[in-house]
């Protein structure tokens, strides 16, 4: 089962995880990852843009690839778009599985792909204005683990 959403408004990790857990009573373990706009440093705002003809379809394909690669009961991918402020959740990934190792690996696989291989563009506003963000070297290395 896959639960894939592109959210223009608030992402509520607590509510989403409660529903995902209830939808998978058969799973022995559920791993989740919540990524938030970091309030440290001097980021005042963040904007995520997407491209409607590609972004949600790409997330659906990522969910399918995740389900195909590990033995899972379900996978959840929720990703924000639009204007965000420090502390706001940007992304929620979850994987439910009989065995925890599958769930941990699947969640990391999905997250590594959302970070640097999904159709999102992110910019941050600091004191000196807006700047487009590109993936870190570590993000590329994390992604390369799966190929």
């Amino acid at each position, binding site marked *: 089962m896959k639960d894939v959403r592109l959210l223009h408004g608030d992402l509520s990790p607590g509510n989403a995880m409660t529903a995902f857990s209830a939808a998978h009573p058969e799973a022995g373990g559920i791993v989740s990852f919540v990524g938030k706009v970091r309030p440290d440093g001097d980021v005042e705002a963040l904007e995520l*843009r997407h*491209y409607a*003809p590609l972004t949600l379809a790409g997330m659906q394909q990522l969910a399918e690839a995740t389900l195909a690669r590990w033995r899972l009961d379900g996978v959840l991918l929720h990703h924000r778009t639009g204007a965000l402020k420090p502390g706001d959740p940007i992304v929620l990934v979850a994987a439910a599985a009989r065995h925890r190792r599958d769930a941990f690996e699947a969640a990391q696989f999905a997250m590594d792909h959302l970070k*640097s291989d*999904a159709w999102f563009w*992110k*910019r941050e506003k600091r004191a000196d204005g807006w700047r*487009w963000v590109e*993936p870190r070297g570590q993000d590329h290395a994390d992604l390369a683990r799966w190929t």
Partner: protein
Amino acid sequence: MGVKLVFLGKLADLAGAPDKDVRGPLDWRGLLDALPGPLGEAARGDTVRLALNGTVLADKAALGAADGDEVALLPPVSGG
């Protein structure tokens, strides 16, 4: 109705607008001719991909768009 060019991420800043209409038909050479200075240079770069009507092209030089089509210019992504 021409070919709609859509600029994502930093390319929208370079273009000064999120999109632009140009006259079709449009091939790769025509696209570059339609993009001024820094935007054209960015489009040539290996990290910028093209999508035609929601399908990413394996080879940008194979672009063939007609009036009514949408061509998206996709710079490096960053999510999560």
